[in-house]
């Protein structure tokens, strides 16, 4: 069994154009200045096309090819930081709910900006109580810390219901703030809520030494490997995995893809194969592979069988 702990619905309503604009700016800044205007325009067109799978048809097809059984879809609440979004945060949740009803391949984590106050907390509670959402996504680049006290009522709900929290670590779109995205930002929350498991999004590879050290000493911290795709092409992924394993973190690493962001640089099958190849190369044991691809995430979600078979709070 394989579980992807980190993915999104590829649609403009879920990942808005403003988010992609910042990413395009970053890519443009790294490309040589001799690219002509048509090439720049074509690059924008191709990168924006990553976000065009609103019904998740391509996503499911890729999952099937790669042998990924379940994927966690993360809601990000951009509604406070970006203006003029096409739909409300409640409608974004309902878009996910409809997909959950159509396909048993997905699990969804709610995402609510804590600056929404009581109304936001009520939305989160409704999502996990009535709509089958099974965790909370914190998106620190929207300008708040994962240890912001306004999030504590959300964490109390997570603690009572045994729901994991996934918080983004590291840089993001150039239109957002990186100030609160350091791994240590989660520490106060993790200390105050020892029964809540916190997943540091991308931190298996981004700022991984700092994140790994925190995970080594805090039993409720997990590390998401999504975003590792670039490290595979750079040839450093296996050394990063060895570093984690040398610190006893086999049971804290989680396979993730961050679909649709990294689609350009390889299919989902390629990333699954890379993990399997690490086992063939002796970097991972069979047990490590099992832990990373599904075992650790099954524990976090309370899944006991081979499918999306438990943990629903409906």
């Amino acid at each position, binding site marked *: 069994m394989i579980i992807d702990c980190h993915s999104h619905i590829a649609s403009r309503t879920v990942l808005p154009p403003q988010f992609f604009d910042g990413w395009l700016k970053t*890519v443009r800044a*790294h*490309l*040589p200045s001799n*690219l*002509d205007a*048509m*090439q720049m325009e*074509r*690059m924008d067109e*191709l990168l924006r*096309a*990553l976000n065009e799978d609103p019904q998740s048809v*391509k996503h499911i097809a890729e999952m099937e090819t790669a042998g990924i059984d379940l994927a966690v879809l993360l809601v990000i609440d951009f509604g406070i930081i970006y203006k003029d979004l096409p739909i409300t945060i409640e409608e974004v949740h309902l878009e996910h709910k409809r997909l959950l009803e159509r396909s048993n391949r997905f699990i969804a984590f709610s995402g609510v900006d804590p600056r929404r106050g009581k109304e936001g907390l009520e939305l989160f509670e409704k999502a996990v109580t009535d709509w089958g959402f099974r965790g909370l996504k914190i998106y620190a680049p929207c300008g708040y810390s994962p240890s912001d006290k306004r999030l504590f009522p959300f964490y109390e709900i997570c603690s009572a219901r045994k729901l994991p929290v996934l918080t983004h670590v590291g840089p993001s779109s150039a239109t957002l703030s990186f100030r609160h995205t350091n791994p240590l930002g989660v520490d106060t929350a993790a200390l105050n809520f020892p029964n809540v498991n916190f997943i540091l999004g991308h931190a298996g590879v981004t700022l991984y030494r700092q994140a790994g050290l925190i995970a080594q000493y805090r039993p409720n911290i997990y590390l998401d490997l999504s975003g590792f795709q*670039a490290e*595979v*092409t*750079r040839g450093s992924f296996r050394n990063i995995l060895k570093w984690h394993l040398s610190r006893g973190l086999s049971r804290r690493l989680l396979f993730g893809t961050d679909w649709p962001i990294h*689609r*350009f*640089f*390889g*299919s989902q099958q*390629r990333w699954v194969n890379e993990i399997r190849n690490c086992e063939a190369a002796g970097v991972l044991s069979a047990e490590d592979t099992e832990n990373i691809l599904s075992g650790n995430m099954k524990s976090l979600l309370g899944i006991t069988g081979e499918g999306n078979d438990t943990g629903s709070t409906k």
Partner: protein
Amino acid sequence: MTQVALNDNQLAVKQILISLCQKNLNHEELNGGMKLFEDLGVDSLQFIRLILEIETSVGKKVFDVETIANLKTVNDLYEVLETQ
């Protein structure tokens, strides 16, 4: 071993790869079975440039997200051009 002659588009792909990947390869050393990332050391930004330069060279749009995601080898690039 008999070498299959490459067409103009394939030769253009080879030339673009040689100039992008900075491995000091010549046309004879660069073969179709080579992997773009592992063997030629193409990184993320070079990969984007590769796509753009190839389309500029052939004068039309030949890639989409799905074909790009499945590009592994030099032969995969040739194949995309052949099917256009």
